[in-house]
């Protein structure tokens, strides 16, 4: 079955949103998705985009049971490491279950690695849930290193009320 990996366009946002929700369901957190496809469009396709997204597309004759031809996506942006420089951050990588095992995930990831290298990035970074064995195995096979295990890094956040409270006390 053939497929193409290409840059997304504003018209792809409804499909991307659909896949974002699918991935959130897989990660057991579907209620956490608050974003709309309109916000995605505004934030990703203006003159100062906050992210980039690649999509994997199959021809009409291979469309999914529900009639979709956009069957996977790779969502990324650029970050910075004060020790080494530019980093490409892989925020989401997902392929619909019925299209797995055909190399689509690897193709999306490779293209992002290529884009990262073209921008002078020294590293790709991402997070994975500790129970997600299929993904943990896939990334290890590509040469990924678990920094939480190897170096003890913990991911923290300030959000909602805590962020507001902190902001309000600024001078």
């Amino acid at each position, binding site marked *: 079955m053939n497929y193409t990996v290409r840059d997304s366009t504003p018209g792809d946002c409804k499909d*991307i949103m659909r896949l*974002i929700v699918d991935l959130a369901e897989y990660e057991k957190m579907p209620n*956490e*998705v*608050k*974003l709309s496809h309109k916000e995605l469009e505004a*934030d*990703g396709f203006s003159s100062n985009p*906050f*992210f980039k997204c690649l999509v994997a597309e199959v021809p009409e004759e291979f469309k999914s049971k529900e009639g979709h031809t956009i069957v996977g996506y790779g*969502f990324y*942006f650029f*970050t*910075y*490491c*004060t*020790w*080494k*420089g*530019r980093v490409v*951050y892989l*925020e*989401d990588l997902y392929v619909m279950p019925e299209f797995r095992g055909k190399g689509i995930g*690897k193709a999306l*990831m*490779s*293209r992002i*690695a*290529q884009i990262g*290298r073209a921008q002078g990035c020294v*590293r790709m*970074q*991402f*997070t*994975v849930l*500790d*129970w997600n064995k299929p993904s943990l195995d896939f990334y290890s096979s*590509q*040469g*990924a*290193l*678990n*920094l*939480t295990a190897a170096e*003890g*890094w*913990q*991911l*923290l*956040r*300030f*959000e909602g009320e*805590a*962020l*507001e*409270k*902190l*902001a309000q*006390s*600024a001078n």
Partner: protein
Amino acid sequence: MANFILRKAEPKDVSDILRLIKELAKYEEMEDQVILTEKELLEDGFGEHPFYHCVVAEVPKEQQSSEGHTVVGFAMYYFTYDPWIGKLLYLEDFYVMKEYRGYGMGSEILKKLSHTAVKTRCSSMHFIVAEWNKPSIEFYKRRGASDLSSEEGWRLFKIDKQYLVKMSSEE
């Protein structure tokens, strides 16, 4: 002594920023990992599409450090994107020189950043902390931060340059 100002970093600050990056890396017991140069910091932070933003803490000349420095703290951040909730502010590095701690500089920097986050409509501020760094973890938790690695199981991964090159050439 409590006189200090917080301001946006300027191109002239890159040598102080690199000095503080190296001091922080030393505190994290990883100082030989810093290979970034002043030239890269300048290009990456003050070009047309900056990869990072930086705030510095400066004291008056009469309160300069034992080595004659007036830039005594910094925070480096950039904007990332969560497909579930939208824009986030990511705090990459945050450091105040040892001799200037205990005067509220760290608190003020964090407040200023959270104010920036709210002003730019970010839903959350994210950052990583080494699990052995108890003083920092307590500092953040006291201000309402949650540890996503403990609470939700997120693990941080990286793929280094040699594997990125391999992946990009395998497409």
